[in-house]
């Protein structure tokens, strides 16, 4: 286990060290809200960060497993490709933005635009998400065990959203869809992979009405 104290050494030195390691476990202390911690990792390393982090923690993650024992600022795990990022606290806006793969687990709540522009990743939020979550989400799954704010799934493409709690106003072109047995099973597997306890039967599914896929003059008022 490599221990790294951010009150003594820089984020630059930490990231360089992480980029240079092919495997292993890292314990990072005193993050104190610093930005860009553990970004651009590309190896099966385990990183535990003890405390709160600023912007873009675990950005563009590939293969690494990163746990944040605290809360995270904007854009946590943005553009994640693979691996797992777990936040034990809450996360600010744009969590998991444009993620292409991998899994982001938020044990607390997520702010606005969670899963914005997501492209294949999975996001499981044990709490609630703010407005405009899954905005322009392309593929992948966003699971919300609590409530979802207004304009959920605005301009969504083929991504799938599951919400257990209340949902505010749905965004443009986002509609509730039938929860098939396959969806229920996939959701149960995902919850179990995320280590989040929730009853798959309590969720409703949302996705694209596909009315905005090609311009149609009769739908002009939906834009």
């Amino acid at each position, binding site marked *: 286990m490599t221990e790294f104290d951010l009150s003594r050494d820089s*984020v*630059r030195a930490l*990231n*360089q060290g992480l*980029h240079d390691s092919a495997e292993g476990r890292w314990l990072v202390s005193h993050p104190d809200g610093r*930005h*860009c911690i553990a*970004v*651009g990792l*590309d190896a099966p390393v385990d990183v535990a960060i003890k405390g709160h982090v*600023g*912007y*873009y923690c675990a*950005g*563009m993650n*590939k293969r690494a497993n990163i746990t944040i024992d605290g809360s995270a600022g*904007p*854009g946590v795990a*943005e*553009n994640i*490709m693979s691996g797992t990022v777990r936040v034990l606290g809450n996360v600010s806006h*744009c969590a998991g*933005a*444009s993620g*292409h793969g991998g899994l982001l687990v938020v044990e607390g709540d997520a702010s606005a*635009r969670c899963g*914005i*522009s997501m*492209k*294949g990743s999975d996001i499981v939020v044990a709490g609630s998400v703010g407005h405009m979550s899954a*905005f*322009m989400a*392309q*593929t992948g799954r966003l699971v919300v065990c609590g409530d979802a704010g207004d304009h959920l799934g605005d301009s969504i*493409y*083929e991504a799938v959203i599951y919400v257990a709690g209340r949902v505010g106003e749905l965004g443009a072109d986002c509609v509730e869809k039938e929860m098939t047995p396959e969806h229920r099973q996939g959701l149960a597997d995902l919850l179990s992979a995320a280590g989040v306890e929730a009853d798959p039967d309590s969720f409703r599914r949302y996705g694209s009405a596909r009315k905005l*896929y*090609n*311009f149609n*003059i009769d739908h*002009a008022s939906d834009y």
Partner: protein
Amino acid sequence: MFGPARGTDMSKPNSLRPSATFPLEVLAEIHRAADQGIYEIRGFGTKRSLPNFDDLLFLGASMSRYPLEGYREKCATDVTLGTRFAKRPVELKIPITIAGMSFGALGAHAKEAIGRAASQIGTSTTTGDGGMTEEERQSSETLIYQVLPSRYGLNPDDVRRADALEIVVGQGAKPGGGGMLLGQKITERVAQMRDLPEGIDQRSACRHPDWTGPDDLEIKIQELREITDWQIPIYLKIGATRVDYDVALSVKAGADVIVLDGMQGGTAATQDVFIEQVGIPTLPALRMAVETLKELGMHRKVQLIVSGGIRTGSDIAKALAMGADAVSIGSAAMVALGCNKPVHLEDYRALGTEPGYCHHCHTGRCPVGVTTQDPELEARLMPEQGARLLRNYLTTLTLEIQTLARACGKSHVLNLEPEDMVALTIEASAMAGVPLAGTRWIPGA
């Protein structure tokens, strides 16, 4: 005293008097809008006439300046971009780069032709919306990787194998607008690269998903530097609008290089109203950018690449003289590859146009195989042959710049300066900040 009204064409009878408020093209556009119920989407840049580099002239050497001998005395053209923070700045042999044009908008052959030509000449080429293709990475020695609001295909592996990153905030053709690729151009490969279904109209986002203002952007740039271990330069591309603010904020956010795209800048598909009515021309944009960089003490420290309507060696020489470090070309590179060439006339006509007038890149039916994904059309542009055309064009541009620089007595093209130029019109004089020919007057200075 009751003579004919202004603008009256006396050769025409009153019954054929045209309306200045409703000229033929305005009438046609209203008829089209009434038929279709949607704005016109098209490719290419602005078609209206704007003050541009043709409105400036070089003075050349005379008694007070000493010219250099053409062909004999050296006139260097190399530039280095990204010297502010990057450990590995981009070194180019000529101050002409190839602008970001997406795979999807351009076909794979065009992309490869551009990569080959740029590599042979010693300059850079740029990816575009939709990500990096293997062909363009392989064929481009120096490849700039765009980070766009859509984040289509954005991949840390490609980030790490890029020679520089370019965060796109805006484009001259549509500052404030996102990308557009109509369903007819979305083939299986394009759809897969963008993680979207085939055949749908792709409207790329106009805002980045994970940052909203200049303070966030500063941290975003820091993140990209951390991911790339501070090795490669980070460019910021802006569409020309409030250039003074945007340049100052780009410098503050930590950009190594600013790419400034004037309103003439080309596009593959944008609303005509956007292309023609939003943004400011390249000429005043460039002056404002250089002024701001100088005020901040950052001119030549943060390098400036300017684009939007660059066609000739003289355009480039004038841009350099105004203070740009390099230029970027999009449309002109397409023209070198054959865009608007009078061949395959029947295919232009099938699009309802003629060579010389075509702006139909959005259709995916490019008659010369540049902006298409159709294998049959693409076969009209073989990468090797396209590379030769573009290489010849880039060589010609470079020779023209050197000719003008030598005439002004400069041993490096970056030594050209505003004092080497005058303006032909009051507008250009005010916009470019060089005196009206025959006077010492710069309106607004």
